[in-house]
């Protein structure tokens, strides 16, 4: 499955060879990978790319949200949305709760780091849009707020 993958030793060897030539770049392609070694400044760069069927699926972009009535609280970054500080604990807010701009309404877990999300506006929670413990995109609408 992995025939003709390029190792760090291969790259070092390619650089040594390329360095003795006047060429600026060398591109090697196998059925699965493409390696590009390029002279950059005083040194070299390497770039590995997966090609063909093996290539990762295209990035799915989230549909653009329609304009929202009232205020919305968006996720500051992509990650897992949590409504409570820990499993089993009561949620930060419920529908009908009044929030101030600095009221923490959720936690987003990204790369093992917990980021608390403040409401950022004053009002009453009208709807909780994101589902607990699911992945949300950056800028995804988490909750809707009726202005105070």
């Amino acid at each position, binding site marked *: 499955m992995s025939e003709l993958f390029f*190792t760090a030793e291969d790259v070092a060897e*390619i*650089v*040594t060879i390329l360095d003795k030539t006047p060429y600026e770049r060398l591109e090697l392609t196998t059925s699965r990978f493409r390696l590009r070694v390029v002279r950059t*400044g005083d040194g070299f760069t*390497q*770039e*590995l*790319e997966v090609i063909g069927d093996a290539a990762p699926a295209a990035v799915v972009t989230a549909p653009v949200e329609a304009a929202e009535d009232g205020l919305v609280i968006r996720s500051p970054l992509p990650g897992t949305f949590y409504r409570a500080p820990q499993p089993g604990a009561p949620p930060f807010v419920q529908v009908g709760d009044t929030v101030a701009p600095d009221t923490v309404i959720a936690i987003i877990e990204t*790369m093992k780091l917990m980021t608390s999300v403040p409401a950022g506006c004053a009002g009453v929670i009208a709807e909780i849009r994101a589902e607990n413990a699911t992945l949300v995109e950056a800028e995804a609408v988490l909750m809707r707020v009726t202005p105070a």
Partner: protein
Amino acid sequence: MIRRLFIANRGEIALRVIRTAKRLGMVTILGVSEADRTSLPALVADEVAVVGPGPSAESYLSVPRVVAAARAARADAVHPGYGFLSENVAFGRAVLAAGMIFVGPDMASLEAMGDKLMARRAGVAAGLPVVPGGEAATKDDARQQAAVTGYPLLLKAVAGGGGRGMKRVDAPEALDAQIDMAMAEAQAAFGDNRIYVERFIASGRHVEVQVLGDGETAIHLGTRDCSIQRRFQKLVEEAPAFGIPEDKHRAITDAAVRFAASLHYRGAGTVEFLVDAATFDFYFLEMNARIQVEHPVTEAVTGIDLVEQQLLVADGQRLGIAQEFVTFAGHAIEMRINAEEWAKDFRPSPGRVRVARWPAGAGVRVDTHIGAGGAVPPYYDSLIGKLIVRGADRAEAVARLQAALAVIDIEGVATTAGLHARIAADARFIAGGVDTRFFEGLDRG
């Protein structure tokens, strides 16, 4: 004999283990989450087994799922990498119970080193100097211990590791609040609220020794200095520890070997010390019973493949290298490139990498799983690659590091490469031998 090796990890270390295992003629099977199905390690492994969905708790951290996947793949052995289940005794036991080899130490060592108090007792028993401090199971214990230890001090989770939950307390007034937080965090992170109170050495260096053992013999592969840290997370590592007088340096490596020998340690391990930056007095901290993120700097100066040694010892072989045949040449430095917006309080930056031009050339090694089009999922830690440079001496290594950092080009996610360029340009870093306060004093503009 290990013919089929299951890799229970992801990212750069999975790729790193696969490369060596293949070179040794093993068939590699990578356990992946749904989020990593098309990752570079998954494409390079001979076989891939999906262990669960994206979130680590249901995939890379699930003992039953990982063990079941390894069994189903008819693996002879499991390599846990670092992090995830690498130091989880229940996992190690489950692997053994399923009739497979655990590529790591025996369970007694793993258990002892997973608990800071047991590790400390073992250190004292082996005659190693330790930092003044002690355990606290209750708030009162912690107060009493703090009175004996003195300030500034550190509160650590007994069951913890990797800097999580560590608190520094500078004065008695701040103690109570910090004890509450440290205990709550220890409980949440490790299910064990015991904390450890330890004297904080104001100007200290984090120096560690790479050891290898086969259960009978133990040797060392020199020191690494990991003093450049942010919130106890390592950013930069070097081999050897620079500017430590030879007699002290030898005393540190001797102590590490003595400790590994006292445990009848099997496999690769790291013995950590806190070294006073002024007097070079050293104190044993703990031992990490696994391969470390920073192992390549040791490989760069010794020419020894640490993963190969792990696999050979796990396979029941005696160490093939005697201490007198370990030679050290040059100086190596590693920088961890993370997908984080370092100028915005190190905010995580997951996403799709459009361009991934890594440095290449003489004395440059890059361990990464990220090529053009590579995904950085939001579920895992932010390490996307490690830049390792080697020079004939430290000055040459620093020059190579600066040149390499100047050509890194990663687009699509934010990275800490720019921060590393600042570190590499810092006069204190260029001079070498900095203490753990380095990062606080860095000009981050």
